[in-house]
């Protein structure tokens, strides 16, 4: 019972972080047809902001770090992608790779390539007892924060005109423009939301690891892309479902593998992902298109 509860908490916690990252990736992919390889650097920017604001009260640091993530997302669009609107997906992806590499190197140049410890309150690494079962408060906070965040994103996407326009653009960008959806506004909003989600995910990840490095965004980016693909590219809900599934899969493999094979956890997880994609290349949570009925 204890093990099952622990598995659930771990899976939900990891899946929640992946969900924030995957939703941001899916938002950008939906409106721009871009797999943004610089998405991980939004996490990195957030991380270094948290590091550099050391000394300020934690809530203020968190607000500043999230603001930095959002601004980084918006600037990414305004300074780079805005000039190559309509370019081929491969071109967009290569540009995003360039941005990622540039930001990593800027971090190395100005702060250094070594991992830096981020000072956080002691409760972050504590364990508490819930009904006799020991859990990490950080895991509970992670699940709570991300569930609230995803619910908020759901409200924005499903209950506001800009959210409706983003979903329309995500489904058929040209048609969305034909009904009057302003492409630049929708793309900027998508980058801002992706920055926000990445920033929250980044803060939660740093709370778990306690360190920041210039390449800290790479592993979360990979997990987010995989979650988006196994859920179903171009569908926001599917990306979130894919993230929780991939989170659960990762935790389950870690628990099932013998100790000396735990290092190969990601290899096993990705092998399973490849199998999934061979069976369902469109993703697990995408139903066959129904729009082309006669």
């Amino acid at each position, binding site marked *: 019972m204890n093990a099952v509860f622990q598995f659930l908490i771990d899976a939900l916690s990891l899946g929640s972080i992946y969900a924030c990252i995957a939703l941001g990736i899916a938002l950008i992919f939906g409106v721009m047809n871009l797999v943004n390889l610089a998405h991980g650097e939004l996490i990195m920017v957030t991380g270094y902001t948290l590091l550099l604001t050391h000394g300020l009260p934690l809530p203020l640091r968190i607000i500043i770090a999230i603001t930095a993530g959002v601004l980084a997302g918006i600037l990414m669009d305004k300074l780079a992608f805005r000039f190559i609107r309509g370019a081929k997906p491969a071109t967009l992806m290569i540009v995003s790779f360039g941005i990622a590499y540039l930001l990593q190197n800027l971090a190395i140049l100005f702060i250094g390539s070594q991992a830096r410890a981020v000072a956080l309150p002691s409760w972050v690494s504590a364990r508490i007892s819930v009904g006799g079962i020991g859990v990490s408060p950080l895991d509970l906070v992670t699940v709570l924060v991300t569930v609230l965040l995803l619910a908020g994103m759901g409200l924005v996407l499903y209950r506001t005109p800009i959210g409706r326009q983003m979903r329309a653009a995500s489904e058929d960008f040209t048609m969305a423009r034909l*009904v*009057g959806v302003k492409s630049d506004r929708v793309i900027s909003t998508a980058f801002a939301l992706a920055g926000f989600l990445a920033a929250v995910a980044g803060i939660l990840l740093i709370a778990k690891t306690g360190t920041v490095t210039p390449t800290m965004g790479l592993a979360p980016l990979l997990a987010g892309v995989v979650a988006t693909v196994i859920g179903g590219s171009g569908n926001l809900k599917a990306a979130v479902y894919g993230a929780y599934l991939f989170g659960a899969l990762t935790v389950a493999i870690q628990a099932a593998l013998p100790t000396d094979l735990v290092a190969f956890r990601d290899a096993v997880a990705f092998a399973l992902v490849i199998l999934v994609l061979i069976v369902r290349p469109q993703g697990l949570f995408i139903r066959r298109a129904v729009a082309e009925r006669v």
Partner: protein
Amino acid sequence: MLEVDSLYVAYGPVTALRGVSIKVEKGSFVGVVGPNGAGKSTLLNTIAGVVKPKSGSVTLAGSKLSGARAEHIVGKHLSLVPEGRRIFGQMTVLENLQLGTTVRKDREQARTHITEMMEVFPILGRFRDRRAGHLSGGEQQQLAIARALLARPEYLLLDEPSAGLAPVIVDSVFEVLKRLHNEGVSILLVEQVAHRTVETADHSYVLQHGNIVARGTASELLQGGLLEAAYLGADGAAPEPEGAGQA
């Protein structure tokens, strides 16, 4: 008046339109017919701002549209119902209709207009909370037309609205178009169903290989054999009307 003048459009090395000129007078019903690959969809997509022309111009009531973005053109009271309906299948019928009002500032009136549209097309009212992708082809076509109308267009462009529909549904689509025309909406209809389009429109153009090869009223095109000649192809055999391409 909507005026297309000497429009050249190319996709890389392939030229889709070669100096096409057409006019749509306010309140008129204009048809454009032609075989597959004639450039009909390219013509509409260029007018609507989806495709950029190589040269030539599109003007609406004297103001230049060519070069403007699609999202701005729809705000100038010109809406396109594209080929294949292009409804947002994962969204509900109501959300599709709400998106049709995106360019409108009069939010309250827009909401009333949506309700009215669901009365004009009762099936949309009945299925308002259903996913649009679950509607039948004919229902989706009604939704696509209703969505376009919610932008309050003075000019409605339709790209093969009968494609893939059962004959009885095609009848109802043409009935809707006639009704809209009678209500004062200017219509530019692109179709492969040539005879029906020519007979319904006030004036039609025949497009072939990116050129206007014939134009006229139904009687001029049908009795003169211009339509058949254009469709049967005979490059150069189709009678070139005087002033064709300069409308």
